[in-house]
C-alpha cells in the first residue's frame, strides 16, 4: 500500500477514476499504486520526445484519445505494404488489439476521453503486421521498422500458448532483433518489450516461446489487483518484470482505448502488461535518453520489487536480488526507474562467453533425474569475452524424446541459484524433442559467472509410455552474457545532479512544474521531532520514537535506505555485525552465520543449504564425493570408493573408476571385457565384440572392442550394406553411419557412393535412377549443360546421365 496522493490534481478523462493501478485518490477503496506512475509524473516525466510503436493488428489513428500523440513516422502497414496502419474493420472487431495496447502507452491526458496513458506525452505509432499471413519476412520487417526513429517496440503476441508449441523467431527476425539492438537509437539499441504469454491454463511455459525467451526482449508478466497469479500467467526464468493486469471477476480490470473510438475495460491477459512497461520505459528514456538497451534491462532488474506479489518460489539469488519464475524481479516501479535512470551511467560493454558444447550423450531414464555439470572459468583467459558479472544465461540443448511434455529442466548456477528452464507440459505430445533450443534465464543476474553449473533433466511421464523409448540429452552448452567489471561501479550521483540542473524550467510543461511544486510542499510540511528516542539510537538523535527513526545507532543498523533502516542490539541470522561501521551486513547467500561477507566465510547454513567444511561455503547441492547431511546441514564425505553417494557415506550411487556398484556399495570392479554378477559376486565375460558391458546380451555393450563397429547399438565386425564406418574422437571403435540414399556402399566420408542399389546408376559419386529422362531432347540437354546443372549435387538427377550419354 502507498501513500494517498491528496495533492494530485485529477484528470477529467471519464475512466481515470477506474485506473486503480495508476493512482490512489479514493479514500473508500484499497490503493494499488505500487507501480508509482503518478510519482514519476510528479517528477516531470510523461514520455515527451519518446517514440513508441505497437507491433500488432494496426492502430486506430483517429481515435480521439490517440490522435494527439499519433505519429505516422512510427507507423507502417506491413500487411498492406503502405504507410497507413489503420486496422481492418469487421463485425467482430477482430483487430482491436493494437488500438487497445496503444492506449495503455500514450492515450492523451485531460482530454475528457477514455483514459490517461502511462506515457501520455509520448508519440505512439502502430505496425500493422498480424492481419494476414505472418512469415519470417513479415516479422523481420516489423521488428526492423525505422530503428533510428522508433525507440520502443511493444509486442503482445507470439506462438500459440496452447502448451504444445515450441517456436520462435526465424533467421530473419533474429537478425532484425540483433540489428535493432546494435544499430537502433543511434547505436544505443532498440527496446523490445514482449508479453510473456497467455497459456497459464494450458500449462504453457514461456521458455517455449523464442520471443519472450530472447535476451533482446524484455519479457513482462502480470499480477492481479491482489497480487495473485492470474489464470493466464505463464511461468519461466526469462521473465524480467511484472505489471498489474486483469484478474478474477471479483478483482478490478484494466481500462483502455478501444476500436471505433470507444473505451473498454475488456482488455485482458498479459498483453496489457507489455505496453504498460513500454510506457514506463518511455518515462525512463525521457529522464535519460542515453540509456542503452542493456541499461534498461539493468534498471528493471534493479528497481522492480516483489512487494506483495504472491508466489511460492520467491528466492534471493547470489547477487542478493529477489526473483521468481512468475514475476521475474517483481512489479515495475516507475518512480524508482526514472530516479535511477536519471543518474545512470552506461554499463560496461557486453561480453559473451560461449562454453564448449557437451556432446556426451546421456540417456534420460523415466522418473529419474539426469544431472550433468560443467565447470567454467567464464573466459577469464580471453579479455574480450570474460564474464565476471552475469546478465543473461542461455543453455542451448538438443534432446531427443518420445514425449516432449514430460520433460523438466533446471539449471543451477555456481552461486546455487536454481532456475527452472522448462516445466512439464501436459498437452505437449510432440516427439520432436528440442533441436538447439535456447533456454534463457535472468535469475542469475549480477552473480559471478565462474564455477560449476549443473543441468538437471527429469522425465516424469504424464501417461504410461513404452519403457524402451528413452529420451536422450544429445548436446548442451552454456552461453554466458555479462560484464568483466561490476556494472554499477560507474554510477554517480554527481552525474544526476548536473543533469537535473541543466534542465531549464522553461522546458517543462505547466503541468510538470505543478507536480514539482506539489512534491516540494509535501517535503516542507514535515516538522522536527523533539520527543525521546529509542534505546538503540546513537548520539545523533532521531525523527521519532521507533528504532527505525534513529539518525545513527548505538549498536548496529539493519536494512538499507531503500528498504528502511532500524537500529538493533545484535544482528539477526543471515547477517554479521560490522563493528567498524556499526552495520549489520548480509552474509553470503545461504549462510545463516558468518564471519564476513565473502562466500567462504560461512560458519552455519540456512535451511536448504549445506555447509561445506573444506571451503566454509553454503551450497544447495553438495559436490561430487560428498552427501547432504540433512540433520547437521553439512556436506559429509562419501566412502573412499564412492564417486557420489546419497544420504549416508557408504550409500554409493556412482563408483570411482575400477569399482563396481553392488547394492549401494562400491566393490572392486571387473577388468575390461568382463561384467559383474551380484550373487555370488563374480566376473563373467562380455560378448566377444564388446570392450565393456553390463551384461551378457548383445545390446548390453557399453563400448565395442577395438576392431568391431557400433551399428545401431550393437557391436558388429563390419558395417552392413548402405553404411560406412566412421571414427569418433575418444571412442576406441568405429561407428556405422548411413550412406547417402540409394548407395549400397560409400567412401569414408559418406558422401561419395561407390556402389548403387539395384535400379540406380553411379554418376560422379551419386546414385541416380536408371530410368529417368527418356525424352530429353537436344534443346533440353543444351539448357542443362549451359546452366552447369550436373556440377551441382542437388541437380545430378536432372537428366545428367542421359544428356552426357547423348554427348
Amino acid at each position: 500500500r502507498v501513500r494517498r496522493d491528496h495533492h494530485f490534481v485529477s484528470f477529467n478523462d471519464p475512466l481515470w477514476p477506474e485506473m486503480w493501478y495508476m493512482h490512489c485518490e479514493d479514500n473508500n477503496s484499497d490503493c494499488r499504486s505500487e507501480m508509482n506512475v503518478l510519482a514519476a509524473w510528479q517528477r516531470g516525466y510523461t514520455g515527451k520526445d519518446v517514440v513508441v510503436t505497437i507491433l500488432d493488428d494496426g492502430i486506430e489513428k483517429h481515435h480521439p484519445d490517440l490522435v494527439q500523440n499519433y505519429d505516422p513516422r512510427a507507423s507502417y502497414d506491413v500487411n498492406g505494404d503502405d504507410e497507413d496502419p489503420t486496422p481492418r474493420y469487421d463485425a467482430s472487431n477482430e483487430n482491436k488489439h493494437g488500438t487497445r495496447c496503444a492506449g495503455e502507452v500514450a492515450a492523451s491526458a485531460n482530454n475528457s476521453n477514455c483514459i490517461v496513458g502511462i506515457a501520455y506525452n509520448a508519440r505512439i505509432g502502430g505496425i500493422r503486421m498480424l492481419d494476414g499471413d505472418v512469415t519470417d519476412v513479415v516479422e523481420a520487417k516489423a521488428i526492423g521498422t525505422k530503428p533510428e526513429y522508433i525507440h520502443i517496440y511493444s509486442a503482445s503476441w507470439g506462438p500459440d500458448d496452447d502448451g504444445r508449441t515450441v517456436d520462435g523467431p526465424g533467421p530473419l527476425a533474429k537478425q532484425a532483433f540483433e540489428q535493432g539492438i546494435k544499430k537502433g537509437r543511434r547505436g544505443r539499441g532498440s527496446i523490445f518489450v514482449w508479453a510473456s504469454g497467455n497459456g497459464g491454463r494450458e500449462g504453457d511455459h514461456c521458455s517455449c516461446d523464442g520471443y519472450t525467451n530472447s535476451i533482446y526482449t524484455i519479457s513482462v508478466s502480470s499480477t492481479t489487483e491482489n497480487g495473485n497469479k492470474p489464470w493466464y500467467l505463464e511461468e519461466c526464468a526469462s521473465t524480467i518484470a511484472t505489471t498489474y493486469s486483469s484478474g478474477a471477476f471479483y478483482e478490478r480490470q484494466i481500462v483502455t482505448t478501444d476500436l471505433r473510438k470507444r473505451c473498454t475495460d475488456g482488455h485482458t491477459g498479459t498483453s496489457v502488461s507489455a505496453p504498460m512497461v513500454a510506457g514506463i520505459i518511455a518515462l525512463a528514456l525521457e529522464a535519460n535518453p542515453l540509456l542503452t538497451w542493456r541499461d534498461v534491462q539493468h534498471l528493471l532488474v534493479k528497481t522492480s520489487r516483489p512487494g506483495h506479489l504472491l508466489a511460492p518460489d520467491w528466492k534471493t539469488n547470489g547477487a542478493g536480488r529477489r526473483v521468481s519464475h512468475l514475476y521475474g524481479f517483481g512489479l515495475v516501479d516507475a518512480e524508482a526507474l526514472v530516479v535511477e535512470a536519471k543518474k545512470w551511467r552506461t554499463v560496461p560493454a557486453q561480453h559473451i562467453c560461449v562454453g564448449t558444447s557437451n556432446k556426451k550423450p546421456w540417456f534420460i531414464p523415466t522418473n529419474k533425474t539426469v544431472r550433468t555439470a560443467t565447470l567454467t572459468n567464464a573466459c577469464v583467459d580471453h579479455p574480450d569475452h570474460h564474464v565476471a558479472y552475469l546478465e543473461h544465461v542461455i543453455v542451448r540443448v538438443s534432446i531427443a524424446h518420445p514425449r516432449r511434455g514430460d520433460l523438466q529442466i533446471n539449471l543451477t548456477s555456481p552461486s546455487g541459484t536454481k532456475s527452472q528452464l522448462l516445466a512439464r507440459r501436459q498437452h505437449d505430445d510432440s516427439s520432436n524433442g528440442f533441436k538447439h533450443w535456447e533456454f534463457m534465464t535472468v535469475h542469475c543476474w549480477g552473480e559471478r559467472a565462474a564455477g560449476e553449473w549443473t543441468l538437471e533433466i527429469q522425465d516424469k511421464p504424464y501417461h504410461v509410455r513404452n519403457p524402451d523409448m528413452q529420451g536422450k540429452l544429445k548436446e548442451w552448452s552454456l552461453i554466458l552474457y555479462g560484464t568483466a567489471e561490476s556494472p554499477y561501479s560507474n554510477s554517480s550521483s554527481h552525474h544526476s545532479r548536473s543533469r537535473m540542473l541543466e534542465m531549464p524550467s522553461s522546458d517543462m510543461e505547466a503541468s510538470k512544474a505543478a507536480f514539482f511544486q506539489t512534491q516540494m510542499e509535501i517535503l516542507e510540511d514535515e516538522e522536527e521531532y523533539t520527543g525521546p528516542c529509542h534505546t538503540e539510537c546513537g548520539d545523533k538523535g532521531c525523527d521519532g520514537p521507533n528504532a527505525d527513526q534513529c539518525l545513527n545507532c548505538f549498536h548496529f543498523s539493519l536494512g538499507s535506505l531503500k528498504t528502511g533502516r532500524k537500529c538493533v542490539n545484535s544482528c539477526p541470522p543471515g547477517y554479521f555485525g560490522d563493528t567498524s561501521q556499526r552495520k549489520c551486513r548480509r552474509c553470503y547467500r545461504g549462510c545463516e552465520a558468518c564471519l564476513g561477507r565473502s562466500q567462504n566465510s560461512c560458519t552455519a547454513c540456512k535451511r536448504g543449504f549445506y555447509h561445506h567444511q573444506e571451503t566454509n561455503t553454503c551450497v544447495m547441492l553438495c559436490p561430487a564425493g560428498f552427501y547432504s547431511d540433512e540433520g547437521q546441514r553439512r556436506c559429509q564425505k562419501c566412502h573412499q570408493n564412492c564417486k557420489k553417494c546419497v544420504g549416508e557415506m557408504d550409500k554409493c550411487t556412482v563408483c570411482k573408476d575400477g569399482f563396481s556398484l553392488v547394492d549401494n556399495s562400491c566393490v572392486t570392479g571387473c577388468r575390461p571385457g568382463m561384467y559383474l554378477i551380484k550373487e555370488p559376486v563374480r566376473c563373467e565375460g562380455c560378448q566377444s565384440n564388446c570392450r565393456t558391458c553390463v551384461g551378457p546380451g548383445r545390446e548390453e555393450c557399453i563400448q565395442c572392442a577395438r576392431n568391431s563397429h557400433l551399428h545401431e547399438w550393437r557391436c558388429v565386425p563390419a558395417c552392413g550394406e548402405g553404411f560406412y564406418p566412421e571414427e569418433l574422437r575418444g571412442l576406441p571403435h568405429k561407428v556405422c553411419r548411413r550412406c547417402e540414399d540409394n548407395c549400397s556402399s560409400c567412401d569414408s566420408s559418406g558422401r561419395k557412393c561407390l556402389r548403387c542399389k539395384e535400379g540406380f546408376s553411379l554418376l560422379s559419386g551419386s546414385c541416380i535412377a536408371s530410368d529417368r529422362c527418356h525424352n530429353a531432347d537436344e534443346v533440353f540437354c543444351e539448357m542443362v549443360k549451359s546452366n552447369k546443372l550436373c556440377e551441382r549435387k542437388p541437380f545430378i538427377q536432372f537428366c545428367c546421365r542421359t544428356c552426357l550419354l547423348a554427348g
Partner: protein
Amino acid sequence: RRPRTVYTNHWAVRVLGGPDEAHRLASAYGYLNLGQIGSLEDYYHFHHSKTIKRSTFSSRGPHNFLRMDPKVRWLQQQEVKRRVKR
C-alpha cells in the same frame, strides 16, 4: 496432430550487389521485388505471382535457378507462422 507447414509464394533472398542487382535478378527469374526486408541490408522480399499462394509443398521449378545464381547467397521460401494475440 501437428499442423502441416504452409508455404507461401513469397521468398526472402540475400543478394550481393545492392538494390539494382536485386531488381535485375527478380526480373530475370520472374519475381516481383518488394524491396529490402526492414533494416536487413542485402536481404530482399521477392514475390512470385505464378506460384500457388498457399501450399503444403515447398516450390521448386524456377526457384532452384534463382538459388543457383552466383549473386544469390541465400534464399528461403516463406512459411506461414501461426501467431496469436495475447
